[in-house]
């Protein structure tokens, strides 16, 4: 019954529900990370002092990501945005300006010595190529290889940069961030040793692998396994027949018999290559994104562990 009293009561209740959010106790500062791997690392350092949102989720390809309005909203509400840098997130500048974000952007790869974009095959220098008289410069997405997280040494720099960024956003939590980082760095060190000793058990001539795109340059550089791919540094480019032919020839010449599919790439081309060279699909590697939460690689540590075990597992059997 619409009496004057009920009207006043409902007006008060309505006003209360509208004002209440403003009266809530201080919420956790919102931090936005550009993609899943970075999001996991920021989460490890920030712990439960921050509320983190990730833009490019699990199994997502940040090279070709199309931001949504929800992303723009998340960025606009954020106190801090953490990105990889080195040209990985080509879409970020437009998103930031579209969202009207005026806060600070932390670049995780700052101060890192990046590998230049170049033909992966030239890495070790002792690699004899049968008839490679043309050295093609593929179109690269930017001057540097952005996949720096594939080397744990680089992730230590990521952690340091993230600690700095979180501390300047929230100085009160400095101690917490430091101790979280110290704990995480210890875990990273342990993993690094694990990887090195596992790879040391592989015979030298078995340390070659084929995968979908050139995402493992830093891993190759750091841990000494050679990665070959038909598609270059960014998944945006389409494979040409020449690239595929060169790869097949190399696989046959070097007796590489394990091919690895990536979680973000189209596996049809890799299937075709595997069939033509009698290679086996050695498993799935996680290059640019974590797996979904029920997958084997839903944190950075699990991802690296899964990757190295898949690699050494297949290469040992060969």
């Amino acid at each position, binding site marked *: 019954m619409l009496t004057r009293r009920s009207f006043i009561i409902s007006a008060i209740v309505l006003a209360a529900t509208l004002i209440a959010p403003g009266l809530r106790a201080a919420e956790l500062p919102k931090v936005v990370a550009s993609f899943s791997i970075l999001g996991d690392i920021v989460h490890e350092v920030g712990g439960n002092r921050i509320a983190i949102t990730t833009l490019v989720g699990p199994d997502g390809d940040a*090279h*070709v990501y199309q931001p949504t309005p929800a992303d723009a909203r998340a960025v606009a509400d954020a106190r801090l945005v953490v990105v990889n840098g080195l040209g990985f997130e080509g879409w970020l500048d437009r998103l930031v300006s579209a969202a009207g974000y005026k806060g600070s952007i932390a670049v995780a790869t700052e101060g890192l010595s990046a590998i230049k974009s170049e033909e992966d095959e030239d890495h070790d220098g002792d690699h004899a190529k049968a008839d490679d008289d043309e050295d093609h410069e593929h179109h690269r997405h930017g001057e540097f290889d952005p996949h720096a997280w594939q080397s744990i040494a680089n992730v230590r720099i990521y952690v340091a940069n993230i600690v700095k960024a979180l501390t300047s956003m929230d100085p009160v939590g400095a101690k917490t961030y430091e101790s979280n980082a110290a704990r995480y760095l210890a875990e990273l060190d342990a993993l690094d040793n694990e990887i090195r000793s596992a790879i040391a058990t592989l015979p030298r001539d078995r340390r070659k692998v084929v995968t979908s795109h050139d995402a493992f340059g830093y891993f190759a550089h750091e841990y000494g396994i050679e990665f070959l791919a038909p598609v270059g540094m960014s998944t945006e480019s389409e494979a040409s*027949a020449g690239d595929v032919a060169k790869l097949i020839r190399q696989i046959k010449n070097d007796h590489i018999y394990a091919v690895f599919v990536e979680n973000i790439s189209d596996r049809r081309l890799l299937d075709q290559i595997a069939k033509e060279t009698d290679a086996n699909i050695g498993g799935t590697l996680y290059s640019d994104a974590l797996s979904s939460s029920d997958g084997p690689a839903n944190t950075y540590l699990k991802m690296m562990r899964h990757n190295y075990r898949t690699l050494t597992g297949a290469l040992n059997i060969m």
Partner: protein
Amino acid sequence: MIYDQLIGPFVEFSFMRRALIGCLALALGATPIGVFLTLRRMSLTGDAMAHAILPGAAVGYLVAGLSLGAMTLGGIVAGLTVAILAGLVARTTIAREDASLAAFYLISLAAGVLIVSMRGSNVDLLHVLFGTVLALNDDAIRLIAGIATVTVVLLTVFYRPLVMECVDPGFLRSVSRLSPVAHYGFLVLAVLNLVGGFHALGTLMAVGIMILPAAAARFWVQNVGGLIIVGSVSAFLCSATGLLLSYHINLPSGPAIILTAGLFYVVSLAIGVYSAPMARLRSTRHLEA
């Protein structure tokens, strides 16, 4: 040396041979359809229908991943639905055929992109749009070859009504009951070939292999049979050339094929037997009283 450059790649690599076979099947099946599309002034309709199959393939992809069967079936259903709906809307409302087809194909394209984005990462969308002629597996080749066979057989059987339909549909309607069969059967064949081409070259370029060689052939011959032959032969040669370019100078394969066909079109435009410059150069007999 010539052998090394032209034949060598195909001898050495199985994926090159498979790509070539896929393109041969497309040249035999899709290009004759393209000839009829250009004769009936339905070239842009063909383009629109190519985009219309995207949501069907996308739904198939959503249900079963990059599965050939699911995406093919979905594509066929979507293509036929749009073709029939567009015609229906044109006949029963005040909308004209071209506007209604444009409306439906734009809706389909957006729906298709949305559906693919919902499920996978954007990499998959790119491959759906651009296809992978270098990665045709056995099932894909069987599909494309099967579609080509069906097309060749049906085009042979229905050759006369189809030609008549292109030239004088009213006459055909008056003398034969085969007119609707010819019209709708042709649309079904067109959708089938677009779906086949879609697996090899993707949405954006499947229609290229259909229309470009057919349009170019028009400048070399003037009878329907000739158009079909010149169209198919040139489609195959352009595909082979495109694949060789992709091999030797590292161009992406799908665009290389379509751009070669495009180049052939431009050349035909300029120096084909029936092109404008050539027509001028031929001496014409003046009407004399």
